[in-house]
């Protein structure tokens, strides 16, 4: 099915570090938008998971951040920027099972070292840049047409 997207649609969310209560709001809204456009369920779920993991990373690790999505008839682009501590070794952070999350976050079932790999796995394009002491930016693209 071809998604019915006339023009481009975008949205932004402010993310606050430590605010677990509102986690998932950006992903839920994006999911609803994509559903309205008639995007394939499997693609919606990939976008929702990638976005939710990105939200969680800001909430767990950063003081604050911003999530921005941009939907065109071809793809969804998601950009997540945070004012973070930054990631020292991106290659290590991308490894499944590696995490620097504190104990109380792990007790909630987060911090299993699967967030970044999940984002990458659910994206068609994935890019991450980080500067220690400044922050991290993640760019994800999910294609709407196979």
């Amino acid at each position, binding site marked *: 099915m071809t998604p019915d997207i006339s023009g481009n649609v975008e949205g932004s969310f402010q993310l606050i570090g430590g605010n677990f209560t509102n986690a*998932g709001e950006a992903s839920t809204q994006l999911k609803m938008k994509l559903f309205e456009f008639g995007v394939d369920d499997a693609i919606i779920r990939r976008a929702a998971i990638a976005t939710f993991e990105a939200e969680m990373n800001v909430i767990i690790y950063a003081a604050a951040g911003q999530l921005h999505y941009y939907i065109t008839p071809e793809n969804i682009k998601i950009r997540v920027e945070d004012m973070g501590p930054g990631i020292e070794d991106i290659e290590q952070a991308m490894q499944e099972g590696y995490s620097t999350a504190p104990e109380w976050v792990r007790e*909630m079932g987060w911090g299993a070292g699967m967030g970044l790999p999940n984002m990458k796995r659910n994206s068609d394009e994935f890019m991450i840049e980080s500067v220690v002491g400044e922050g991290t930016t993640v760019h994800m693209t999910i294609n709407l047409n196979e």
Partner: protein
Amino acid sequence: MKLSELAEKLSLKIASHTEGMNGNITGAYSSDLLSDVMANSKVGNVWITLQTHINIVAVASLKGLAGIIIVGNRQPQPETIEKAEAEKVTILTTSHTAYETAGQIYQILST
């Protein structure tokens, strides 16, 4: 199988979104790591966990799970129930352990 039939067989108690009991289940997934559930559960699965905090609702909702079974007599937090009602996520509870619950569901679904 309908979630309501499974709930009856396992004597599960409903904590949120009763309407979801009519939904069909495609299987089950047992894990307390939220990213693992997002990566490896399947649409329509019922999720067995001991986590009770609010984020389990978003995971179940975004992943399209049939419901959540919280094990070991744990109760979902009030804000978890509130969010689950809003997001239409069915939460059930049991006094059994994850092992017992998964074992029972496995048996029920494979016969």
